[in-house]
């Protein structure tokens, strides 16, 4: 059943394909890395229409020799730089430890942010501590930067007796209002319109706090993403909409999310939103862009849309095997390097850091997370009995427990008695 007219050329369906697959030699020589200061930093009050080219360039601060240069240079002092480095190294140490814990069967699941630490740590440092974050699942660096207790994160990952989320959420789906960190959803991109709504509320109340939201480039295909963009533009909401373009959405490369056609940053242009494309592995560029966007939002100049160009160095999650769909060694060949390494070299160049200090800090952080892990494991690991009391399962469905949940709770307790003997009591 085709409607083919005799002498017309047949139509063809285009299916995007990544350039490299397992067994291929990755080569990123065609990835354009413009020099630092190829795009100058505009005034925060610029109109979106006047700065459209920023969606196609790459905001960079650290050059190939690890010097901070150009108009985007945020001019941070050495203490701020060291603290940024430490937060990123802590994130990496935490990821390594928890990844291993999953492999040892202590929990069901884990997701690393290796290579993308700048997009959570540097952004969090550029915000005010009470600006509201609507993260996706790879922004653990925000919590670590804001000083959320590491043991609490681990308790959540182990779903143990001290898990503040009562063992209900998948590991890494934290919630921390005390750090202005919104509860994470497993459903992609749902946080996008919610962040816009929070910003609208803040604006309508004459508050001074702004909101920021993160999602992956794959998630920009969701309808929620586009609804959020429309609302942000219509209400000129004080929100920073960020896309962490780490090139891969599970096994699907960025072309499957539309990345072959234009930059992700350019998606903001059609909505009339100021849009930046940023070197996501340059912590200073990430900081500077976020600071610029935050200043815009706080001065009622409206929303900003930011794409961080980065690379997902590890698997999507502990359930994933990246070797099955992409070329090995892609990360080593990634033209924008490793954010931790780049900041380290910059600090060394400034004479404010050394290889020895770096190694010492690496060991200190590894020891810190190891020690904290022991503390968390004393509260239990997944499936080994030290979990939340059974009846907590029925709490928080509603503010007050309706009759049917009370009845079901009693039934469940009775089942546990039958399983474990009449002397068993819920803890």
């Amino acid at each position, binding site marked *: *059943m085709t409607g083919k007219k005799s002498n017309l050329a047949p139509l063809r*369906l285009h*299916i995007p*394909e990544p350039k490299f*697959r397992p067994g291929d030699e990755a080569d990123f020589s065609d990835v354009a890395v413009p020099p630092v200061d190829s795009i100058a930093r505009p005034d925060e009050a610029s109109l979106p229409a006047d700065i459209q080219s920023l969606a196609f360039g790459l905001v960079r601060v650290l050059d190939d020799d690890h010097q901070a240069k150009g108009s985007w240079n945020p001019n941070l002092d050495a203490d701020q730089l060291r603290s940024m480095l430490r937060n990123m190294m802590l994130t990496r140490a935490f990821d390594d430890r928890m990844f291993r814990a999953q492999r040892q*069967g202590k929990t*069901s*699941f884990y997701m690393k942010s290796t290579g993308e630490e700048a997009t959570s740590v540097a952004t969090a440092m550029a915000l005010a501590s009470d600006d509201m974050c609507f993260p996706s699942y790879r922004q653990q660096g925000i919590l670590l930067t804001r000083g959320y207790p590491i043991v609490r994160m681990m308790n959540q990952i182990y*779903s*143990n007796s001290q*898990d503040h989320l*009562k*063992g*209900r*959420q*998948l*590991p890494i*789906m934290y919630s921390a209002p005390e750090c202005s960190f919104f509860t994470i*959803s*497993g*459903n*992609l*991109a749902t946080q996008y319109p919610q962040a816009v709504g929070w910003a609208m509320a803040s604006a309508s109340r004459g508050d001074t706090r702004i909101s920021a939201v993160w999602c992956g480039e*794959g*998630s920009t*295909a*969701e*309808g*929620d993403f586009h609804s959020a963009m429309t609302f942000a533009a219509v209400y000129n909401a004080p929100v920073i909409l960020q896309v962490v373009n780490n090139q891969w*959405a*599970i*096994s*699907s490369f960025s072309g*499957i*999310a*539309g990345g072959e056609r234009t930059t992700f940053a350019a998606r903001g242009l059609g909505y009339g939103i100021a849009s930046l494309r940023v070197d996501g592995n340059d912590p200073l560029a990430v900081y500077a862009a976020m600071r610029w966007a935050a200043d815009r939002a706080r001065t009622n100049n409206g929303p900003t849309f930011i794409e961080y160009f980065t690379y997902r160095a590890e698997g999507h999650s502990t*359930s*994933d095997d990246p070797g*099955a*769909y992409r070329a090995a060694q892609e990360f080593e060949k990634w033209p924008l390097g490793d954010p931790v390494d780049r900041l380290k070299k910059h600090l060394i160049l400034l004479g404010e850091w050394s290889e020895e200090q770096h190694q010492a800090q690496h060991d200190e952080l590894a020891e810190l997370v190891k020690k904290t892990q022991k503390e968390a494991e004393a509260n239990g690991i*997944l*499936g080994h*009995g030290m*979990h*939340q009391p*059974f009846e*907590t*399962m*029925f709490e928080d*469905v509603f503010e007050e427990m309706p009759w*049917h*949940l009370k009845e*079901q709770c009693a*039934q*469940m307790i*009775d*089942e*546990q008695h*039958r*399983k474990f003997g009449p002397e068993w009591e819920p803890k």
Partner: protein
Amino acid sequence: MMGDTKTMNMIEAINSALDIMLERDPDVVLMGEDIGYFGGVFRATAGLQAKHGKTRVFDTPISECGIIGAGVGMAAYGLRPVPEIQFADYIYPGLDQLVSEAARLRYRSAGDFICPMTVRSPFGGGIFGGQTHSQSPESLFTHVCGIKTIVPSNPYDAKGLLIAAIEDNDPVIFFEPKRIYNGPFSGYYDRPVEPWSKHEASAVPEGYYRIELGKAGVVREGEALTILTYGTMVHVVQMVVAEMGIDADILDLRTLLPLDVEAIERSVKNTGRCLVVHEATRTSGFGAELAALVQERCFYHLEAPVERVTGFDTPYPHSLEWAYFPGPVRIASAIEKIMKD
């Protein structure tokens, strides 16, 4: 045509059904998140892109609304799209396209347009998926007019039902219980998982065969009571019945809509007692429909009220999922209660 049999788990059986349908019918296309080169996060489409080409088996953007909406358009052209939604929990962004569009295309156009689309999706809990990777939303779809809803419980049925679904001219939701996809999920002392693994691989014909939609499977014939169930629960129910040594008549419903009401009626009229078992939450779940139906059609034959064993009316809790899951104790208690009357 069925050819030799091979031992397959459910994933392999589904892969085989898709392979055969791609081979037999050039109108069949598979699409979904990560299903192409990689073969899907559960590997259901592994190898199919390499064999049948990129335009027949391809990755989609992460947009369930786009996937299902595009499926409706492809079906309107005359293809037979088989979209995969990575987890049933993520079908909701595509719900409007399913409920308002796919389901009513035939009705609103008086048959001008039809939607022969089969949406496949792994569903159910028991793999430590937490509250966003464990849901059983089947009753949302049986409540919609114009969609067929299928839940297989074993590799043989999964293959035969999936082939029939793809050949069907109406939109079908094909829910695959991921708990019994691959093999045992062991390592936790407090989870009753071992006995279920026995059912995961079975002899499956390598070739083409169909299992008619709308016909229940008879798992076991008996006189003492009727147990109506489907999906993963078929295995839990079998285990309990064997342990209790009770002569139950177990029906695996397989197709929830259209439902095999004749088989249900025949069985309940014979046994006089009925238990409904499903994993989904209780209130307004499919069990309520089954209980009402049995009451309407078999009231004068019933010797005890119809009982329901279900998940609780809470989201699926990550660490306590095995206490949430309608396991052997819950089922055994219900059977004892029914048999007392």
